């Protein structure tokens, strides 16, 4: 187990290093001056001196400077937000995205799993068809549409929720629901699929033959193996949800990290681009390792087989 964990940690670190190298190459290759704040032109001497100050006049030096800083968890300055460092930007925005994202994933699990199980045990019936329609709607309607509709309905007409912003409990429900809907759909489909595979198994027939009630057969015996595809999906899904959604953040005015992925690239802010990518890559690797560990808990045979 420990050897496996160590192997996963080493391959994870190598993955992050590759992501960093590729990002760095793209960051230094794209056109645009990170020091220019508006449309007015900057004196070339000042630009040259600023590049020298941050070692951006020497890509090789800049590559190692940034990497060593990142290892020490110091991502350096941002050029978009003069007064804030990359660490401060991440520290201010990542917790917000983590709260919204993890609530969305929790909501998705609480809604998606029962929906998937219900669809599987009522396969081909009205419940299954209704579940399918719901799932297709959740996947196919983009979040900016569902978010806007929720905002207009609950924020403007019913006045039950604030119009955007962040800081109180009332700011949470609308963005969390908006962000969770696509995840609800995927989790419901994966649960249904897993459950249908499991329901035909012999060990379940044995369970029924022994006279166990359906509730116990489904939730105690069938659910565990049926949940494995959902577990595989949860790693990347959680990383995606907690590192922010640009659309949801923009729509509800949430100061999360998702907007910085986009804005850092638009502003050509090298430090912020690389630090946000590194945060995302690290979380993705970390969640995949956690999922691996959970696998061994859910079904130790998988680890033994590996």
């Amino acid at each position, binding site marked *: 187990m420990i050897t496996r964990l160590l192997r996963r940690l080493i391959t994870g670190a190598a993955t992050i290093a590759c992501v960093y190298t590729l990002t760095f190459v793209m960051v230094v290759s794209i056109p645009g*001056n990170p020091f220019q704040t508006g449309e007015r032109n900057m004196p070339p*001497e000042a630009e040259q001196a*600023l590049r020298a*100050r941050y070692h951006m006049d020497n890509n090789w030096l800049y590559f190692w400077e940034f990497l060593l800083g990142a290892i020490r968890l110091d991502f350096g300055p941002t050029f978009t937000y003069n007064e804030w460092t990359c660490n401060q930007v991440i520290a201010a925005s990542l917790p917000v995205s983590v709260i919204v994202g993890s609530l969305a994933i929790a909501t998705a699990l609480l809604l998606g799993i029962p929906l998937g199980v219900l669809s599987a045990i009522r396969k081909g019936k009205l419940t299954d068809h209704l579940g399918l329609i719901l799932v297709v709607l959740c996947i196919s309607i983009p979040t900016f549409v569902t978010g806007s509709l929720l905002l207009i309905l609950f924020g*403007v007409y019913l006045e039950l929720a604030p119009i*955007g912003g962040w800081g109180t409990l009332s*700011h949470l429900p609308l963005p969390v629901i908006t962000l969770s809907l696509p995840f609800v759909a995927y989790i419901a489909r994966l649960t249904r699929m897993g459950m249908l595979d499991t329901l035909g198994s012999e060990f379940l027939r044995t369970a029924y033959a022994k006279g166990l009630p359906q509730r116990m057969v489904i939730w105690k015996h069938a659910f565990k193996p049926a949940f494995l595809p959902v577990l595989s999906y949860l790693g990347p899904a959680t990383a995606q949800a907690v590192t922010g959604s640009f659309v949801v953040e923009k729509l509800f005015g949430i100061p999360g990290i998702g907007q910085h992925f986009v804005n850092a690239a638009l*502003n050509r802010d090298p430090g912020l681009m690389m630090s946000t990518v590194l945060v995302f890559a690290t979380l993705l690797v970390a969640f995949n390792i956690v999922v691996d560990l959970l696998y061994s808990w859910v079904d130790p045979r998988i680890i033994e087989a590996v």
Partner: protein
Amino acid sequence: MFGRIVAGCLAVVAIELCVVGLRGRSDRADFTYVNPSGIHTLDPARMSWTQDFRVALNIWEGLTTWHPQTTEPIAGAALFPPEISADRLTYRFVLREDARWSNGDRVTSEDFIRGWRRGMEPGTAADYTFLFTDHIAGADAYVRWRRECVSALTTGGDIEAVFDGCAGEMEKRFARVGVRAEDDRTLVVSLTRPCPYFLDLTAFPSFLPCHPSVELLRERHRGTPINAQGLVVYDPQWTKPDYHRSGYPGLTTNGPYCLEEWTFKRRARLTANPHFRDVAKIACKTVDMLEYENVSASLLAYESGRVDLLTDLSVPYDHEIARLARSGERPDFHSCVLLATYFLNFNCTSPTVAGRDNPFVDARVRRAFTLALDRDQIVDKVRRRGDRAAKSFVPPRSIPAYEPPEGLAQNAAEARRLLVEAGFSNGRELPTVELLYVPNDERMCQAMARMWEEALGVRVELRSQESKTFAEEKARQRFMIARGNWYADYNDPTTFLNCLVTDNGNNDSGYTNPRYDELLASANNAEDSAARAALLRRAEAIVVEEDCPILPILHYTETVAIQPYVSGLHANPRLWFPFRHVSVQR
């Protein structure tokens, strides 16, 4: 299994609700407004965005300030008017006896010199160094020398000797700049030439004072006041109220308000400065500046009464907002005619662009393209935001005692004649013309391309670039036609016209005409204001009627929303809202 998942999820939900519930605060300030894209910087030497100016001018105060309605210069931290010499080259400002920083310290003339010097230094200054070099005696020579130092230190050679030379000579060189503290309360400023708008400039953020505590955060190399690259650099976090590195007390300001709290991408809270002279008269003791990434969401917040002032209403249906403001159906929507122009730059210098011949090196082609455009239609049918169609660079009826020239009205026949005269018997003989713009201008640029194709028969290729790439392409003159805009920095035609002077840093079209440069130089030295206005008018006529290096499209109009229960705010061309005059009667 499922029970454990449910328990885990509920635990996550409960913990996070507790975190948000405990940390959240909903206390409402006396007055709340939305800063659409957030604060870019609060460093007065670096800022260039109107929304940053608005915060800065509410927490700092210059020698003068702007009238809340007319934006004319009025008394600020100094007595008004200052003593002006007969040759109008020397201004002697006496600071108010009761001018105080937010910690109770007296505001001194040295504080102003410190702030102004930051605005000249290559390490701290950004877009507005020219306000000093163009107007203050000796500033240009000092800035040039400083840039040479920085350049020498970054290009190699005997770095140590260059560094010692720069560091050792800095104070001696700066002593030649025309700002001098006669005593603690008296600041004497010497100008390069008579400047009728200088008191307007002294209210501008670049001319704000700076508290001495900032020196605690200055980067020093080998005990000198500059860093290893020769730059004057301060820890950029000096503008935060809760930053205390090296014993720094946090941001100290001298305006009607001080910054109590600044949370990244959420809000800034201003509270009345207890040491400000008129603090008793300030009705709104707390002001919140909220940041909304989405303008539609901020408009909904305004409509629900959670916000008292909105300065950006650029929603997808902004034409409807502009109509409601114009028709008076929404008396809380106000139209502000800005001192700003949207125009197109013609590349006047590069004979080829992207391997194609650039026909715009010929003034006749530029004039033909100007004549072919129906700017009224662009304003009324395409943009529909209540802007004014532009035929001049300086907006008409905006600057006292100056009326810009007529400019060129639409005349397709004359445009075609000019093309023939330039050697193109029809538009098809011209190489494909490329129009460079940013995505926000898509509809306008499509309309302009269509007008040129119909009037002149030319082929127009549209090239949209996002803003950073666009800025680089424009700065390197890799365009035939590129969009541009200019917001006035001060209330004088030269704020626009200087952009087209040969070698000006913002002369993106690369235009050069000695006659134009001479007229502007003569205007600078003119004794009489009417004669000066006439010279400037002649200069502007050259660029909008003869040489046409730019094609003015429209003068911006902005709509702002002020709740009906708010008084003391006035729509004005600078979107300048001093909160000390605001009162709220909900």
